[in-house]
């Protein structure tokens, strides 16, 4: 009987660095290194994929990989404190051990984006995998393979903006058109104010030879898609990353089943066109 | 101890000591326990105290979870009826504890495992006697098995 590998067995990893991302400090980025050195080298992933993060004793949860494949030797996961596992992770300190399974899911379609202008629209802390994609595109080895890069990122208020250090770097670069907005500013805020869909309409990125990726709370997605369509983006050129309850990550436990698809296997990235063919249950 | 020589050390049979969780209401029973301590009144060290604002804060979940986790005995103590800091907390709790105690006994959990009492802030002496009594009763029952997970 051929012995098959156990897809439920996580790899042990250590928390090397934990940085708090927002003022409410319920969103932290965990920099993680595999204990098994050659695994660190062989863990191949593309932006938009996710891992199943284990805190032993609390359970597992699916978290998008926030680091870019161009970052050597470590992974980053940005996690909001919501449930049992995420709370346990937030109580961790550097050096603690967790488990990681993956990478799972299809990730953003890099080939489909090559040679075209890319528009990334993110909201709230769902910006993680878009950040991974943006860092990947901006990396010296890859920048040439893509056209103009427009990133529109919004959060409820300035305190909720994450990856501020990346945003500062991107502001200085001339090969990325970064637009950051907040629903409601505060005294120290000098940037744009307004919901992401309205700012998107204002920025009006051209749809000519362009592809767009949207990732954020359902309400932001619902109001951004019509704007995209108005700007001339065809349904097959609007990419979305779905957020579903997941337990196995490998298309067996049935939770993320939408129509005949499993969001963890066939997604989480779908084109708007594909989603129109699926039942509205996501 | 090499294989050859076997010295006859007296087999110290460590006598089994029950572990008892005690939910003490902050205003009366906890103060009573404190008084026992201040007045240097001795009582068995088997209890571990959980301070609760009122005996009515103790839900059946706390008691059943303690039994499931393998505590050998549970003691819940609050203010005497009429003296509750929150006026009627212990009176509401009294009905809840009555139903719980009868139900656990009906299921087959030994009655002496779960004990309820009223101890006022001035009854340090009585608290120590209560603890001694509960420890004796639970020790007589032996280690807990029923409802314990993984038994």
């Amino acid at each position, binding site marked *: 009987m051929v012995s098959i590998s156990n897809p439920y067995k996580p790899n042990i990893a250590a928390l090397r660095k934990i940085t708090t991302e927002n003022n409410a400090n319920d969103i932290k980025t965990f920099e993680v290194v595999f204990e098994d050195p050659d695994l660190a080298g062989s863990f191949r992933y593309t932006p938009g994929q996710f891992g199943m993060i284990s805190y032993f004793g609390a359970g597992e949860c699916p978290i998008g990989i926030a680091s870019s494949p161009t970052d050597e030797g470590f992974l980053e996961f940005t996690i909001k404190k919501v*449930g*049992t596992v995420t*709370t346990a992770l937030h109580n961790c300190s550097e050096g603690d051990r967790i488990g990681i399974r993956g990478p799972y899911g299809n990730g953003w379609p890099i080939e489909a984006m090559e040679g075209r202008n890319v528009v990334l629209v993110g909201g709230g802390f769902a910006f993680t995998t878009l950040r991974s994609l943006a860092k990947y595109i901006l990396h010296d080895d890859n920048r040439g393979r893509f056209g103009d890069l427009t990133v529109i990122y919004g959060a409820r208020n300035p305190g909720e903006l994450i990856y501020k250090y990346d945003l500062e770097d991107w502001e200085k670069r001339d090969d990325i058109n970064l637009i950051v907005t907040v629903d409601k500013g505060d005294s120290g805020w000098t940037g744009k104010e307004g919901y992401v869909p309205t700012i998107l309409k204002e920025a009006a990125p051209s749809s000519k030879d362009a592809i767009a990726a949207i990732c954020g709370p359902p309400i932001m997605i619902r109001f951004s898609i019509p704007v995209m369509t108005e700007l001339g983006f065809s349904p097959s050129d609007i990419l979305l990353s779905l957020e579903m309850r997941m337990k196995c990550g490998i298309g067996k436990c049935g939770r993320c089943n939408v129509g005949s698809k499993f969001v963890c296997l066939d997604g989480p990235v779908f084109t708007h066109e594909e989603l129109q063919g699926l039942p509205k249950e996501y | 101890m090499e294989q050859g020589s076997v010295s006859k050390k007296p087999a110290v049979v460590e006598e089994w000591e029950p572990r008892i969780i005690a939910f003490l209401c902050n205003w009366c029973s906890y103060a009573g326990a404190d008084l026992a301590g201040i007045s240097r009144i001795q009582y068995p060290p088997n209890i571990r105290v959980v301070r609760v604002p009122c005996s009515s804060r103790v839900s*059946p*979940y706390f008691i*059943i*979870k303690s039994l*499931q986790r393998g505590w050998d005995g549970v003691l819940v103590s609050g203010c005497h*009826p*009429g003296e509750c800091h929150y006026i*009627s907390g212990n*009176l*509401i709790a*009294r*009905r*809840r*504890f*009555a*139903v*719980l*105690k*009868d*139900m*656990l*006994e*009906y*299921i*087959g*959990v*030994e*009655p002496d495992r779960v*004990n*309820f*009492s*009223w101890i006022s802030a001035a009854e340090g002496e009585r608290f120590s006697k*209560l603890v001694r*009594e*509960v420890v004796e009763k639970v020790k007589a029952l032996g280690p807990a098995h*029923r*409802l*314990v*997970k*993984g*038994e």
Partner: protein
Amino acid sequence: MEGLGNSIKEAAERLLNEGDVDLVIGYERGTTPLRSTPCFIRDSGDVDRLIWDPTCDANLAKYLIGQDAKIGVFVKGCDARSAVVCIAEGQIDRDKVVLIGLPCSGVVDRKKIDSVLDGREILDATVDEEKITVRGEDFEEELPTKNFLCDSCLSCRHRTPTVYDIMIGDTPTEEPDTDEYAEVDELESMTAEERWAHFVEELSSCIRCYSCRNVCPMCYCKECFVDETMPAWFGKTNDLSDTMIYHIVRSLHLAGRCVDCGACSRSCPMGIDLRTLLKKGEKIVKERFSFEAGMDVEEKPVMSVFKQEDSEEFVI
């Protein structure tokens, strides 16, 4: 019985036609022998589907929880008491419900009938208050209905709904002879070890399907304590300790609220007798606080009030 059939349909038809209710919930013939099934009628033209006989065993008060339409619902004595408890606990708006009382003399227990047929399958059956006729591939037998009623019905003290707006037929009178706490008393006479062994044996076949919880009108929590994760009080697997605790805590939650309608035991696919557990809760509350569930809409739930003279002999 036939007369009742028509008055049931007429009552439903009038309520729907006069717009007193938007929906009538009743019973219709099931798809397998000896089964009835709940039915939801909005169009008065469909009232012919409505039936009433000793197979109508679902507690329809369950379907009143969380509804905002005006509903007419057929209730037996126990179902009406369930509705009263839910009204007293603010889960059902009394003004939005028309309770149509049914003259119940007990519902049949299919498991009791199966146990005397030793495996032979019933292909067709007719039931009335006197006898049950069951027909199979090569047999036909007549069974006296009274010997195959549910345990709850054998000792039922409240055949007449305690609260109703319309009563179908005349209110049943005869009082049952069996003592309602016979099984509980028998268990109480056993030793603690024997009782523990009884409940371990009975509850160890539970597969945590939660049909007992989901058919019960009193179980309307948005999130049941077994589903809670922060904190996760008790385990969700069918580990014996967690399973027994699920049933014990549920019986605590039902003490003074359960009306002994028997729906939980009837729904259990593994044939577990939950009644001897829940009946103890009812007995405790009756003896200690002289309270009986579902008798009076105005009366406050028993575990949310207290009396100075509540018994405390158990306090050491």
